């Protein structure tokens, strides 16, 4: 299936969870926030949250800023 990750299309297998995707991307789960279709996913739900076709996922983190 296809989802949109940070605005770009991304193809994943049907059984992929948020935890699996973060692992595949090499993103440490402790330093990011996951938003799925504008709802924040709590870290303890990463392993049990899977995707629907066309889901909009945002991976956000802190950067330097004023």
């Amino acid at each position, binding site marked *: 299936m296809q989802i949109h990750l940070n605005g770009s299309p991304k193809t994943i297998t049907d059984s992929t969870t948020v935890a699996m995707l973060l692992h595949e991307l090499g993103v440490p789960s402790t330093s990011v926030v996951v938003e799925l279709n504008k709802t924040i996913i709590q870290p303890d739900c990463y392993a049990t949250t899977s995707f629907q076709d066309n889901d909009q996922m945002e991976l956000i983190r802190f950067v*330097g800023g004023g």
Partner: protein
Amino acid sequence: MLTIGGHTFNSRLFLGTGKFSSSTVMKQAIEASGTEMVTVALRRVDLENPQDDIMSALDRDKCVFLPNTSGARNAEEAIRLAHLARAASGSSWLKLEVTPDPRTLLPDPVETLKATEELVRAGFIVLPYMNADPILALRLQDVGAAAVMPLGSPIGTNQGILTAFQIEIIINQARVPVVVDAGIGAPSHAALAMEMGADAVLVNTAISVAGDPVAMARAFAQAVEAGRTAFVAGMGSRSKQAQASSPLTGTLATDLGFLA
């Protein structure tokens, strides 16, 4: 001592973390500044550099972490960013920024007021970035802003305090701390804001892009302290006429009358 949102600050210099050449320089500048409040922004993870993480370079035991909502163009986007910030930081501190025009980055007063009201209700400690509008400052404190952050001049311009007249009114009226934010380009600008009675200043660009950011951070710390001390000491009033600082009696001209 300065207290915002129930937290007491010894340093009245707040630091932005943008535009530093490396996290090592940023860390050293934070240290040299003595700051106890640093701002950060939220952005999409760069999937090419997934390990890149500013949090590991910041000591949250020493500094309050103040996430901003930069990039938000209206209240709705700012509120969405605020909730992401709270999820990422685990705290409710928030510098609210709503800047619809990327050319000026001037804050939208209507959307800022709307977002402040809603975020205060949702339990955030809101420090809104605002134009130096005294009436807006009152409205923001009325809806529960923990401090107000009027701009000296537009973000990143290093133009200094172009809004001194209005900031003075804001300071005189405010029941919440006034943090002068944006446009402060030199230690003298920071000192001026503090001499006027601002409770703190927030500086980023002037330090992060300086030739030596660590030395500049130190210079700002000294300026903020000097300005604050001067304000507390009580500054003399201004006059259009000369006021002699030496005694006017007993001068040579009086004693030796023929000189008169």
